[in-house]
């Protein structure tokens, strides 16, 4: 029996090699090295499936593979910094998702990039490869430091890919913004990592010596941590650490207030957007929280904050999505909003729900983006929905798959999104009944449901329904297999993924064993001690409360409400936009319209902050040149001036010399005479 886990590094390295190949010899390869990437990701995908199967077979792995920095003292304790792999149900699942999406994106890129005659393809595929590699490395990371490192690399790749069209002014600045904003979040994350290492002497995720385990023990009074900053309550300190790490999550997962980079990131090629939003960069944040959920579950405050941020972001982003005109912009805001849901779930103790939504969202959001890509190809890279319309008949495959994705996004039964979103709201509700802050999160999440449905179908109708509004829309460019293939795969997944976790059905009909994901994440088929959803539930702060009719009743009510709201939103969109020639209705919003168009002026705010910082820098520079350097140069000029005075003594008249000489001698005589007391 060969040990599959020893091949896990290969999952990471295969895309990395494709990166090297594409970068090195890509321009000599057909399709600019695309096939290398496809082969690599396909290989990783197959390996991931194998790993998944193995984990399902009850095995798991938590291994240290490589010592990065040998052991040394950091004051309170000694630490050793290492790399390793942690393969448990969660990471196995994530591996499959990432590799699959990345594979499909590679394939799709053949249509989107190569067929469109883009230049710099080797750079593109190299970027994709490195991107996948970094994300996979992040997924299998067995400790927080390694996770942070690959987290950062993911950021780099997003920078490279968003700024792919570097010859235009837009993409580079968008790339810069993406990196900077996430860097700002990562600043706190880095402090968090250092704090964790300093506090526990380890950054391991799993095992009895892992920092969640140590924290748990310490809080239970069964152990102690290596260090806490002067006189700080352990609980408080752990909360602080949790929030610090959360900074990185907020940045990467584009949560309020660090979400501003994501819409701009649409400057990147559409397949990249699909990759970023569905499976890699943005997902990384949420995945991180899930990965170290055993730690977060210990700090209720952090959980509440997460939940509230999540709920708020869900609603907040959804509202902005309502007024956007570009296809990808709408999707961008929908992404932010959806990740808000996941955060809500995590904050609400719905660990499984979050992972569930992460999974479904990965598929239907990838689907939507690729679909949007197909439309963009068809529309000759015009993204304005008001120039589209009536594409339904011209590109059926795209339409139906896109529709499936939209239904999932809107959370319409029985599509994938419904199940996951519904479970999130359910968790938030039952736990929120005993926790007002959480309940607030739930309500915001609930409010976001109709809005989501509305903008989703506004998008669908404007794009595919009604009369074509432009020439290109009348005669769109056709797309080939390499576009349709991925769409179909993802379309199917968007429909069926939900069935892996039909909790409501299970609860109502009492069918045991159909909530597969729950069982999966609960180590039903094996996993790693301390990383099961039950364990999280046990250490978590929440207790469940129910509405009328106990659990089942609550399930039904919750599901009904959310579905109802979704349908309402859908219908409004139908009424307004599913007409031959739809018109702008944003005017109805009045003043709010501008606010929404301008994203609540948050970008302006951040730009303003940036400029103020530059002003401060300018001030510092003036100070430096004027005062500090002025002093330095001042000293020299003063000395020279002194010299020019001194030399004047030398008047050139010899009898004055005689005089000065005599005076000097007399002065010396007096000095010594007085000190020596001769004249007494």
């Amino acid at each position: 029996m060969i040990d599959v886990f020893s091949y896990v590094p290969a999952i990471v390295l295969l895309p990395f090699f494709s990166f090297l190949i594409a970068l090195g010899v890509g321009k000599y390869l057909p399709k600019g090295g695309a096939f290398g990437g496809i082969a690599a990701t396909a290989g990783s995908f197959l390996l991931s499936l194998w790993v998944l199967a193995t984990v399902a077979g009850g095995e798991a792995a938590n291994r240290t593979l490589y010592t990065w920095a040998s052991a040394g003292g950091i004051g309170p304790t000694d630490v050793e910094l290492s790399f390793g792999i942690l393969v448990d149900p969660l990471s196995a699942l994530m591996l499959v998702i990432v590799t699959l999406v990345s594979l499909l994106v590679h394939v799709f890129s053949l249509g989107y990039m190569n067929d469109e005659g883009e230049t710099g393809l080797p750079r593109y595929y190299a970027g994709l490869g490195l991107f996948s590699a970094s994300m996979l490395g992040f997924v299998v990371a067995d400790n927080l430091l390694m996770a942070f490192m690959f987290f950062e690399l993911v950021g780099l790749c997003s920078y490279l890919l968003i700024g792919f069209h570097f010859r235009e002014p837009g993409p580079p600045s968008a790339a810069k913004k993406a990196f900077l904003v996430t860097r700002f979040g990562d600043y706190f994350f880095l402090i968090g990592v250092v704090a964790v290492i300093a506090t526990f002497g380890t950054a391991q995720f799993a095992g009895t010596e892992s920092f969640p385990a140590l924290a748990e023990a310490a809080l239970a009074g069964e152990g102690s941590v290596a260090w806490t900053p002067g006189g700080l309550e352990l609980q408080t300190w752990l909360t602080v650490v949790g929030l610090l790490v959360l900074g990185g999550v907020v940045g990467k997962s584009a949560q309020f207030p660090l979400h501003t980079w994501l819409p701009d990131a649409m400057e990147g090629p559409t397949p990249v957007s699909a990759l970023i939003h569905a499976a890699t960069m943005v997902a990384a944040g949420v995945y991180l929280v899930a990965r170290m959920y055993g730690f977060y579950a210990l700090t209720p405050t952090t959980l509440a904050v997460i939940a509230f941020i999540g709920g708020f972001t869900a609603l907040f982003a959804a509202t902005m999505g309502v007024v956007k005109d570009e296809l990808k912009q709408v999707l961008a805001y929908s992404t932010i909003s959806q990740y808000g849901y996941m955060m809500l779930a995590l904050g609400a103790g719905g660990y499984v729900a979050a992972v569930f939504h992460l999974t479904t969202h990965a598929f239907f959001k990838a689907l939507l983006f690729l679909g949007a890509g197909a439309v963009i190809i068809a529309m000759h890279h015009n993204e304005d929905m008001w120039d589209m319309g009536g594409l339904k008949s011209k590109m059926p495959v795209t339409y139906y798959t896109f529709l499936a994705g939209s239904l999932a996004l809107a959370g319409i039964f029985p599509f994938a999104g419904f199940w996951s979103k519904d479970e999130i709201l359910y968790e938030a509700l039952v736990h929120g009944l005993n926790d007002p802050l959480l309940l607030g999160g739930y309500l915001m999440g609930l409010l976001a449901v109709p809005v989501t449905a509305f903008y989703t179908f506004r998008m669908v109708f404007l794009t595919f329904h009604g009369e074509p509004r432009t020439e290109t829309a009348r005669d769109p460019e056709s797309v080939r297999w390499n576009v349709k293939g991925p769409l179909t795969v993802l379309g199917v997944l968007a429909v069926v993924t939900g069935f892996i976790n039909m909790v409501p059905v299970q609860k109502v009909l009492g069918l045991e064993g159909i909530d597969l994901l729950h069982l999966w994440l609960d180590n039903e088929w094996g996993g790693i001690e301390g990383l099961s959803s039950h364990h999280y539930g046990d250490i978590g702060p929440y207790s469940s409360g129910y509405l009328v009719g106990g659990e089942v009743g609550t399930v039904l009510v919750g599901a009904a409400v959310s579905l109802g709201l979704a349908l309402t939103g859908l219908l409004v969109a139908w009424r307004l936009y599913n007409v031959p020639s739809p018109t702008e209705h944003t005017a109805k919003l009045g003043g709010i319209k501008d606010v929404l168009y301008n994203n609540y002026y948050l970008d302006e705010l951040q730009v303003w902050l940036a400029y103020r910082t530059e002003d401060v820098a300018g001030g510092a520079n003036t100070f430096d040149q004027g005062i500090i350097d002025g002093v330095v140069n001042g000293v020299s000029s003063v000395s020279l001036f002194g010299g020019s005075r001194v030399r004047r003594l030398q008047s050139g008249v010899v009898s004055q010399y005689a005089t000065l000489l005599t005076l000097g001698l007399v002065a010396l005589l007096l000095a010594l005479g007085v000190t020596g007391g001769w004249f007494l």
Partner: protein
Amino acid sequence: MIEALIGFTFVAALLVLLAPDEWAGRLAFAFSLLPFVGSMYLWSGFDGAGNALTGGDIAYATQIEWLEVGGRTVSWFVGVDGISLPLVVLTTFLVPLAIVSAWTPIDARQSQFYGLMLFMEANLLGVFTALDFFLWFVFWEAVLVPMYFLIGIWGGPRRKYAAIKFFVYTNAASLLMFIGFMSLTFALGDSASSFALPEITGAIADGGLGTWFGISPDRIAMVAFLAMFLGFAVKVPIVPFHTWLPDAHVEAPTPVSVLLAGVLLKMGTYALLRFNFTMLPDQASALAIPIGAIAVISVIYGAMLALAQKDLKRIVAYSSVSSMGYVILGLIVFTEYGVGGATFQMVAHGLISGLMFMAVGVIYNATHTRMVGDMSGMADRMPVAVGIFVAGAFGYMGLPLMAGFAGEFFIFVGSFSAPALPYAPIFTALAMFGIVIVAGYLLSAMQSTLFGPFELETDYDVGPAPFHDVAPLAVLLVAIIVLGVAPDIFFEMIRDAAVPVVEGVTIDG
């Protein structure tokens, strides 16, 4: 072995000085490879353990009495330990690359230029290997001479001003340091009979300091510490003694900037570690808070200044000030990871800043301007060079798996919970914010110069950079990544030598 290394480099400098200009560059490169091979040999056979100053086993040690003055012997005493060897390797590694990077820009009086470069290398090697104060001081001061010429003759428009400023400012600092060290030595009285650093360190550690002309030992130690600290602070440089650095960098030709930022700055931090923090650890920890504050200020203030610059070289120069702040932070916390990380950061920053200056130089060779406003879209014309530039910039921003991150992270981990530095977490967190600002200015600079549509103020037709311009960049990049992926190749020996330094300090309370 070491004396052979240094001696050969001196001879090579002389030969190159006499060589005809046409092939002085090639000859210098050929010669400079030998010291590199030599340092590799030193590394391969390295058997040192512990810290050279605190009685550890010194590798390749030679001690020959030179002369006796004031009842104390001055000797030719060289050797390496885990702290100095990486810096020796760094020096011998950077010099050949710098020489190659000079082939394009240096078009006059080549033989003198390359001769002086090698002469400087020899002295730098001496600085990092000397274990006798006067021997060390000879090399330390001798570095100024070639630097003065290199900036003054081949520099930019304000080269004379920059050269004399560098020359006088750093020399003043050395004199201050000299007085401080001497009063320390003589306060030791008869408990030290030579100027050998290990002996002096040992004598101080054994409480050899006596009352000296009515001044109590503690006062002497503190005064000496301050004098030496100020002296080295100029060389490092630490805010507010940094103003010579931007001028020197901007005026110096690219290869000289490479060595200036890559190695010369490390002389200051190396000396701080050797003298202030190894010989007088208790004084250091007594001043932990002010020094920590200076470190943080250097980081943030330097980064802010870099943010305000328009000249690419100035940007990198100020960011060096910022990076040196990290090193100081790592030293003052007195933990293995802190001190080790600081030393590692010296090497890492040497490579990265070298790469950045070279990259800027390559662009300058093609465009004859370094002003951010004067160009854009360079990536369109010189893709490879720009690609490496970008990679290097990310290295500077502390991208994981590149050397810079390793150094900075070690320092942060080492300092965050350090007992020696009160409020360590706050200091560390503040210093960490540098990684955001550095990303800010480097990304902005890259966006406006490298990306966007190609434009250029000066009328030069820009093509891909010649091979011998790009090759050093590539080599450096590889080195940076290797060090970032496997920092232990240096960090282990560094840590081994840092342990005694850490144990040397007594933390009150």
